[in-house]
């Protein structure tokens, strides 16, 4: 039961952090469910979506029909496009300030708000608290991103309760899109369970409280999920557009560039140019940490996605992943400065999280990957360079620095 099995179609294996099932034909659950994208009647699915949101359309009384969580990147533009232009809903958009903001992310977010002409709520948790919680989550689970994910996934739900807006509209259901956790037809909705299990690595806010003496109620209360009774009273429901729309991020982003001038950037650790440009760390040090803990990287997700959409072969995808996975991360100096730690003490904490299944410690603190890498970099432009052409950059010609949001007087 310990043996790793591999999907014969994409790059995933049974160790995928979200879990993965591989059937007797060697096809993984992610590829299996992806096949629905080519077989479902998407017109019918759109009708189902219209039926679902119908009761939530406001008459004149209340201003907002729904809440849409956004960032300055990822599917935010496409979600807004569907919500405002196709579904003709009036959303309140919400975003959690992760503090690692790039000029690109801020520009895209400002452009989003203005192009779609909506009200936006931004949550800024006291940075001193965020740093405290970040240090705690690093120690216990080797994660520097726990506060970001916890905030991004809970602020929209808290807002739903506080503003009495039951409907929360998300874009892609990560479990379905990556590993086929649900069929599109299961119409899976947002749950506290999924968040704890797959977003927060098994740790909710109060779990951190119980482990650390240094953290208090005042440090974690903002990350706490509303109670079941609150959710029931408000009839809060979170839906995923990817269950009702044939989800294809590359195609969607290209359309958003055309329609709304969404800006993209090149990355060191992936060929994709559209996702996570709003964060200095997600595709840098955070991706590296994921790699050491799980043997799994974002470029693997994106390459598998492209295989499934029939735009790239498994062989080409493997070469891409082999190349990008070995590229070093950037901008980590900004992170150490922000957190108030030295690089070597950070490395020391990380050292205990290297997964020996994928890494070999050749000397104390120095690890090499057990994976066999054979790639010729020059080939890459032939595979994918032309298909992903960035129109901007993370820094947008400004010096690299976390953009402060909502600080007030400079």
């Amino acid at each position, binding site marked *: 039961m310990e043996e790793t099995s591999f999907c014969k179609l994409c790059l995933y294996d049974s160790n995928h952090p979200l879990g993965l099932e591989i059937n007797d034909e060697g096809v993984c*659950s992610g590829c*299996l469910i992806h096949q629905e994208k080519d077989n479902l009647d998407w017109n019918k699915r759109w009708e189902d979506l219209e039926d679902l949101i119908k009761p939530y359309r406001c008459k004149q009384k209340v201003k907002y029909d729904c809440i849409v969580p956004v960032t300055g990147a990822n599917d935010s533009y496409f979600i807004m496009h569907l919500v405002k232009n196709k579904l003709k809903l009036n959303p309140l958009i919400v975003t959690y300030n992760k503090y690692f903001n790039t000029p690109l992310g801020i520009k895209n977010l400002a452009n989003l708000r203005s192009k779609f002409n909506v009200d936006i709520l931004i949550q800024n948790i006291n940075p001193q608290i965020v740093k405290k919680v970040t240090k705690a989550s690093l120690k216990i689970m080797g994660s520097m991103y726990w506060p970001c994910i916890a905030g991004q996934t809970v602020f929209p739900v808290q807002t739903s309760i506080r503003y009495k807006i039951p409907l929360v509209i998300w874009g892609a259901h990560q479990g379905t899109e990556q590993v086929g956790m649900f069929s599109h037809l299961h119409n899976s909705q947002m749950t506290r*369970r999924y968040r704890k299990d797959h977003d927060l690595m098994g740790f909710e806010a109060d779990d951190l409280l119980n482990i650390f003496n240094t953290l208090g109620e005042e440090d974690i209360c903002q990350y706490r999920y509303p109670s079941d009774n609150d959710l029931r009273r408000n009839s809060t429901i979170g839906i995923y557009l990817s269950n009702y729309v044939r989800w294809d991020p590359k195609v969607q982003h290209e359309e958003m560039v055309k329609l709304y001038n969404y800006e993209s950037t090149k990355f060191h650790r992936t060929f994709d140019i559209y996702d996570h440009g709003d964060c200095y760390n997600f595709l840098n040090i955070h991706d590296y940490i994921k790699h050491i803990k799980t043997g799994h990287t974002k470029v693997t997700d994106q390459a598998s996605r492209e295989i499934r959409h029939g735009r790239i072969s498994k062989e080409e995808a493997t070469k891409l992943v082999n190349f990008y996975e070995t590229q070093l991360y950037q901008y980590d100096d900004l992170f150490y400065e922000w957190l108030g730690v030295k690089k070597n003490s950070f490395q020391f904490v990380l050292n205990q999280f290297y997964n020996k299944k994928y890494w070999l410690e050749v000397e104390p603190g120095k690890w090499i990957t057990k994976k066999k890498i054979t790639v010729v970099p020059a080939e890459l432009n032939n595979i994918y360079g032309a298909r992903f052409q960035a129109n901007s950059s993370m820094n947008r010609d400004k010096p690299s620095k976390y953009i402060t949001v909502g600080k007030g007087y400079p």
Partner: protein
Amino acid sequence: MIKKRVAATVVVKNDRVVQSLAFKTYLPVGSVDTIIQNLDRWGVDEIIVLNIDRTSNGLGPNIEIVKKISSIPISTPLTYGGGITSVSDAIDVISSGAERIIIDSLFLKSPSDIKIISEVIGSQAIILSIPFKVIDGHFFHFNYLTKIFTKLDLVNIKQYEKIISELLLIDVDAEGDAGSYSNEVVEFFSEVNIGLISYGGVGLSSQGSELLDAPSVNAIAYGNILNYGELFFQKVKKSLTKSKKKLRRSTYRDKI
């Protein structure tokens, strides 16, 4: 008055929770303790854990997982099945934190052990799992290990009326397809005086209520669907409007 139960089924494969569709297709769901902690908080009437890859891999019951679940901790009745093929297996599972056990292949391979097990852990703790298929109106017993189905022998099952306390009737083909459970199986079992639990594609609202109407049905169980949305257990229970008086009222936790 005793209430009928709406149980939550958790299918475990390779120590992780999966969606099980018609005993054939499996989709990853998540970790056992997070999912069961959630069900406990929702106040389900009973948690049924079906660990489906133990006996087929020559393994005994998953004691680690039973202990793990008990340590969450939970205060909801726990029923465990998977890999129980001996008296000591049964004792181990009960001592580790389950109230009741489910046996399947043991009934087919070594049925004489069942009486011995009942003398130790008590008949109230034993449930016999009967995966079944309906073909042209005839009922067949599905052996999940050999994938062979044989005609359902009620005479044989009747012998266990005092020895086991309930039968878990699993509609193999309907599993994962809410609303397609073969309700007729209840009538088929009418001559057997053992309480029934229906699982595998049990529908919401009227189909579920129809099952609960039958005097011999003590419980209905839902599996995959409970993972599809927030407070889905309470939603499912609420949909069984005709059975409102027969069921425990739902609860919603106020504190975290």
